[in-house]
């Protein structure tokens, strides 16, 4: 998945995540490799870290995960519309 897809999910990167305890800071990271319950992931500017992926299985290399406090809590969907085009349920 392209890096641009990650960037759209949030303005946060690993070295600038706002406030992790704010509880609504989420960092989009791309999966580089998976080993057991953890995945090596990379942010939009190349920072890498290990992320627990039990809560978002199945996970594939290249997917973009929304992470918080070292744990993936969601997946970013590849957006094909701009925000003014009525992306809502």
């Amino acid at each position, binding site marked *: 998945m392209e890096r641009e897809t990650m960037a759209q*999910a949030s303005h946060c990167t690993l070295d600038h995540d706002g406030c992790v305890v704010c509880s609504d*800071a989420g960092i989009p990271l791309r999966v580089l490799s998976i080993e057991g319950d953890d995945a090596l992931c990379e942010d939009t500017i190349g920072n890498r870290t290990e992320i627990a992926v039990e809560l978002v299985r199945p996970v594939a290399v290249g997917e973009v995960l929304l992470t918080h406090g070292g744990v993936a809590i969601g997946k970013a969907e590849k957006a094909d519309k701009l*925000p003014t085009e009525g992306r809502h349920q």
Partner: protein
Amino acid sequence: MKYVDEFRNAEIARAVSAEIASITDPGRHYKLMEVCGGHTHTIYRHGIKDLLPDQIELVHGPGCPVCVLPMGRVDDGIAVAERPEVIFTCFGDMMRVPGSKGNLLEIKAEGADIRMVYSPLDALRVARENPDREVVFYAIGFETTAPSTALTLQRAKKEGIGNFSVFCNHVTIVPPVRALLDSPDLRLDAFIGPGHVSTVIGCRPYEFMPADYGKPCVVAGFEPLDLLQSILMLMRQLDGGRCEVENQYSRIVPWEGNLAALKSMADVFELRPYFEWRGMGFIAQSALKLSEAYADFDAELRYSVPGVRVADPKACQCGEVLKGVLKPWECKVFGTACTPEHPLGTLMVSSEGACAAYYNFGRKSFEKVEIGTRQ
């Protein structure tokens, strides 16, 4: 950068802003609450308020867990951190939150072994590496953060790590919002729902807002255009007489939430009968504690915490700001006795706190106050 630029595109922002203005009733005052501190930060940082008609007032909600933590719980954490056998771990922002006799940074300077971690899994790693010490993690946060604590405890139990425990201060978003809706102080028209909390809990928990209180809610993302579009969606509902929950942030938030995360939380946590919120008092079933199955990992049971209730400093008006009754700059000590460098209240500590966000990025209303006071 592609997509980021588009979500911050000035031309589109102006078009959305114009559409909001076109459906705003000039004779009506609209009060929209952004529940989440992350949204407050975006609103001030990107000057969203300047793109809205004067009739639309954005009220900042209680969605910053550092900000709503009562001083007594900070003191309880410090009491555990001061124990010689303990390695105390917590998130960075927690280090500067003032207790009644100082903060964790000051206690660390006096010799306590306090370590900042990025994830509760890092705290568990510290426990593995220090089998002769007791490692305590100070857990705080809404439903975005609670899954990481739950997952960490599940791993600790599976691995049989006995020298690890959690001092649990996790809170939930729906009860305080309901308390705000029940409050006679505040009359709100609609809500901007928290984006990443909703990644975990989904959109269904907000259905009580339209159903029980007749208030629309739009779950929103965190880029400037996300916020503007969410406000437009709310204004369309108010203009068209509709009242429902909508999901502007559907590229991240599934309507049903993350079921695996919810299951993990249900395994590890149970609701507390009540919990104290700064400025809002005790709210029933608004916080989490460890379940019976994880009682061995509960720091509140392992150590005797004082559990003393401490009143906020008299000059501090965080409570009124948290409830949206006062704007940050209307607090008596805003920018004088209370600054991000020397915070008196929690809202000035966290970068997502309304006061810190306004101190760093706000301007328009502050100028109005200054002009108004100079005769």
